[in-house]
C-alpha cells in the first residue's frame, strides 16, 4: 500500500469503447466499485466491500475509463485532513480524480495540486452508490490537469439515473464546448466572497482580475452582505444531515461491534464510539445537538438557506460567472477544530449551500474560483478553458 492509494485497481484490459478510452481514473473509497473496499475513510465501514458499482462508476466503465484505484480520504470526505485528493494527478498516476465535495474539498484539493477542479451543479450526477454524509450539499467533484478532460468525463457520467429518484426531473444540461467572446462576457466580483486574503494573495488575485479585464472581460462589482451566513447555514444544516446519515452505522447489520456490551444501547454506544474519529464525532455531535436541543435554530438555518439561495441567484443572473479566490485551509499541524475546518472552507462552501457549479483554476499564488448559475456547467467549463490561459501566466 502506498501513501496515495488505499486500493489499486487490477484492471488492465480496457472495457468498452467510449470517449474515455484508456483514461485512468482514481476515485475515493466512498464511491462504490463492486468488490472494492468501500470504507469512506471510516472505521465504521472497515472491511466493507461494495456490492455493486455506483451509477457513475458504471458509466465510467462504459465509456472505456480504467479505474486505477481509490485514494486515501478524510473520514466520510469531511474536510481534507489525511486526504490525498489530487496527489494521484500530481504524481501522474491518474488522469482524472473523483473527489467528494462537501464544502469545497475537491476544489481546494485541486488548488493544492495545481490542477483544475469542478464541483458540478447539484443534481447533475447520480448519487446512487455514493457513501455520502451531507446529501443536500455534497457532490462528486472532478479533478484533472485541463478543463477539456473534466468536460469529457462529465459528459460521460452526468444525467438522469432511473435508480436515483433524488435527481431533479430536468432536461439534460448542455455541456458541449462553446466559444467565449470576452467582450460579451461579464464576470462578477462579490466583495464579501473574497474573504481576508494575505497581502501576497490579495495582490495575486488583483493581478489575475487585472489580466481578465485587459483581455476584454467586463468586471462587475457586486455585494452580498449576508455572505458570512453561508458558513453558519452549512454548519448547522450540514451537521444535522451528517448526524442523520451516520445513524445507520450502528453495527447491527455491518461494521464492527465492540465485545462486552450488555445490551443494545451499550452496543450502539461502544460501536459508534470506536467507529468514528474525533473530528467527525464533533461534527455528528454538533448535528445531534441541533436536532435534539436547538431545533428552532435548524429551522431558521433552513429558512436562511432559502433566502441565501435566492439572493445568490439574483447576483448570478447579472453576470456570466462569479469570480473569487479559492483559498485552502491552513495546515495547523494539529487536527483542526470544527470552527477551524469551517474557516478553511469559507471561500468554497457557499456553492455547496446553493448547489451552483464551481470550477477552480490553478494560477500562480492564488487559485481562481468561477461559480455559475445552477445547471450552467457547460458555460462555466467553456469560460474556465478560456480563462485558464489568461490567468495561468503568473504575475
Amino acid at each position, binding site marked *: 500500500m502506498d501513501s496515495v492509494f488505499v486500493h489499486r485497481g487490477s484492471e488492465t484490459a480496457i472495457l468498452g469503447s467510449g470517449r474515455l478510452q484508456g483514461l485512468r481514473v482514481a476515485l475515493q473509497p466512498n464511491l*462504490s466499485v463492486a468488490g472494492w473496499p*468501500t470504507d*469512506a475513510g471510516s472505521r465504521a*465501514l472497515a472491511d*466493507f466491500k*461494495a*456490492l*455493486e458499482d*455506483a451509477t457513475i462508476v458504471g458509466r465510467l466503465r462504459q465509456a472505456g475509463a480504467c479505474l486505477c484505484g481509490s485514494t486515501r480520504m478524510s473520514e466520510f470526505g469531511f474536510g481534507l485532513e489525511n486526504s490525498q485528493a489530487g496527489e494521484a494527478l500530481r504524481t501522474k498516476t491518474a488522469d482524472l480524480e473523483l473527489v467528494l465535495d462537501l464544502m469545497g474539498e475537491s476544489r481546494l484539493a485541486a488548488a493544492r495540486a495545481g490542477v483544475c477542479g469542478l464541483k458540478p451543479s447539484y443534481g447533475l450526477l447520480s*448519487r*446512487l*452508490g*455514493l*457513501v455520502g454524509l451531507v*446529501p*443536500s450539499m455534497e457532490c462528486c467533484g472532478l479533478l484533472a490537469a485541463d478543463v477539456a478532460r473534466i468536460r469529457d468525463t462529465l459528459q460521460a457520467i452526468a444525467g438522469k439515473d432511473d*435508480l*436515483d*429518484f*433524488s435527481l*431533479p426531473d430536468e432536461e439534460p444540461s448542455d455541456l458541449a464546448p462553446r466559444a467565449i467572446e470576452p467582450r460579451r462576457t461579464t464576470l462578477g466580483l462579490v466583495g464579501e466572497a473574497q474573504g481576508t486574503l494575505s497581502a501576497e494573495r490579495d495582490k495575486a488575485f488583483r493581478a489575475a482580475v487585472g489580466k481578465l479585464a485587459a483581455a476584454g472581460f467586463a468586471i462587475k462589482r457586486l455585494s452580498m452582505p449576508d455572505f458570512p451566513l453561508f458558513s453558519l447555514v452549512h454548519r448547522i444544516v450540514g451537521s*444535522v*444531515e451528517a448526524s*442523520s446519515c*451516520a*445513524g*445507520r452505522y*450502528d453495527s*447491527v*447489520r*455491518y461494521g464492527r461491534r465492540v465485545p462486552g456490551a450488555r445490551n*443494545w444501547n451499550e452496543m*450502539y454506544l461502544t460501536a459508534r464510539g470506536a467507529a468514528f474519529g474525533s473530528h467527525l464525532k464533533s461534527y455528528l455531535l454538533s448535528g445531534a445537538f441541533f*436536532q*435534539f436541543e436547538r*431545533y428552532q435554530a*435548524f429551522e431558521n438555518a*433552513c429558512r436562511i438557506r432559502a433566502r441565501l439561495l435566492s439572493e445568490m441567484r439574483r447576483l448570478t443572473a447579472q453576470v456570466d460567472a462569479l469570480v473569487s479566490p479559492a483559498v485552502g485551509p491552513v495546515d495547523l499541524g494539529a487536527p483542526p477544530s470544527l470552527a477551524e475546518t469551517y474557516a478553511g472552507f469559507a471561500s468554497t462552501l457557499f456553492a455547496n449551500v446553493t448547489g451552483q457549479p464551481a470550477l477552480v483554476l490553478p494560477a500562480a499564488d492564488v487559485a481562481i474560483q468561477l461559480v455559475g448559475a445552477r445547471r450552467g456547467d457547460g458555460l462555466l467549463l467553456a469560460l474556465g478553458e478560456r480563462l485558464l490561459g489568461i490567468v495561468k501566466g503568473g504575475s
Partner: protein
Amino acid sequence: MEFEAVIGLEIHVELNCPTKMFCDCPNRYGDEPNANTCPTCLWFPGAAPRLSEVALEKAALLCLGLGAELQPTSVFDQKVYYYPDLPKGFQLSQAHLPLSRGGGIEIADETGKPKRLRIHHIHMEEDVAKLVHEMEGRVPISLVDFNRAGAPLVEIVTEPDFRSPHHAMEFLKALRTQVRYVGSSECSMENGTMRVDANISVRPRGTSQMNTKVEVKNMNSVRHVGDAIAYEFARQRAAVEAGEAVVLHTRLWDPDKKATLPMRAKFEGPCVPDPSVPVIALSREWIEAMRSRLPEMPAARAERFVAQHGLSADEATFLSADPDVARYFEALVGEGIAPRMALHWLGTQLLPAVKERGQELAATKVPAPRLAVLLKLLARDEINANVARKVLGAMFDSDDAPEAIVEAGGYRQVSDAKELDLLIDKVMVEKKLTAADLQGGQGKAMGFLIGQVMQASGGKANPKKIRELLAKKLGTA
C-alpha cells in the same frame, strides 16, 4: 360533577402493496426472516430510496375514500431515534407536510343520531423491523427481522371528536369498510394490518378545556379499543375525583387483566426534513385521475340499494359493508334474481357456507352466476328451499351444474297432485289423524302433517302444493 371523555385516535394502516415503500422487495408476511431485504431497506452505504408509485396511489385512494384533501405538496421527514428496529437511526415519515388534510366519517351515535368524526390529517410512513428477544443458553439475545422494515403504512390522525368507546368502535368499523372499499388495505386489527392508539383525557362535561392526555396502545381488536377507552376513562375520572393529577404518559392495554398499565416511554426524537426522498408534488390532473378510480363508497351504495331494490336501510348497509358482498349481490340481481331472495340467500346461506369452508367470497367455488341458476330452479318451484340448501352444499364439492346435481339426487320437487294425495293419505293413516284434528288446534296438527309429508317424500314435496291439496280435502279452499 359529571365528566366526559375526550378521545382522539391514531391509526396505522398497512397498505396492501406488492412491494415495500422505497425498494422492490416483496411486502409479504410469513417468509423466512430477512428473506425480503435488499441494500436499500437494510440501508447499506450508498443505497438510495425510491418511493413506490403503487404505495403513493394506494395511500392517495385511501385519503380520497375518507373524504380527505390531498395536498399538492407533501414531504418526507426523518423521525430520529436510535433503536435496533430502525436500520438507519430514523424513520421516514411525513411530520410537517402530510399527504392529506381533513376528511372524516359519519357514524350513528348511541341514540342513532348521525355524528361526524373528523380526521386531522393522513400521512405516509415506513414500517420498522421486527425484534425477537430470545435466550441463547443463559445469554439474552435480540434478533432482528427486516422483512417488515420499509413496508408502506399510512397513519390516520383524527381530531379529538370522540366522546365514548361507541364512537371509537363505530369509527373503526366504518373506516375498515371504507378502506377495504378503495382496496388499499384489509385493515385487520387481528392480523396487525390496522393498529390503533387512543389518546384519552377527561374534563367536566360541557366545558371545552383540553386536559393532559394519556396514550393507550396494544389493542388487538375493535372490541379491545372500546374496552380500553372505557377503562381508561373510568381510571382518569376516579383520579380526578380523588384530586390526583393526570400525567402525560403511555399505557398498554392488557386484555387478560382488562386494564391499562403504564409503560416505559419510548424516546421521541425530533423530525427533520429528509434530503433524499424528493418532494411529492401532486398535480390537479393526477388527483382527479385518482378520484376517478374511487369506487362507489358504501354510504352511497347503500342509499342506491334502498332506492333501486326496495331494501331497508339496515339490509342495504349490511350488503354494502363489504365490497365483495355488494358485488355478489349485484351480480345475483343482474342474473335476474329478485333482490329480496338474493339478499336472503346471500346472507343466510352462501356467506356462512363460504366462511365455513375458509374460502374468499371473491374466489368462491359458487360464484354469483352459479348460485343464480340454483335460485332460478327454486323460484320456478322446480325444487324446494330444503333441497336448494342441500344442492348448494353439494355445489361446493362439485363442478356439476345445479340442474345436474338436482337430477342426480332425484331432488326435483314433487308437485304432482296424485302422488302427493297418496302421501297425505298414507301419513294420516299412519299417524291416526282425522280431518277434525286438522281443523282444530290452531293449525298445529296441520303443520305436523305437512312436516310428515315432506319427510315421507324425502324432502322433495312442494309444501305449497301440499297446503293446497289439504285445503281442498278439508273443504276450506
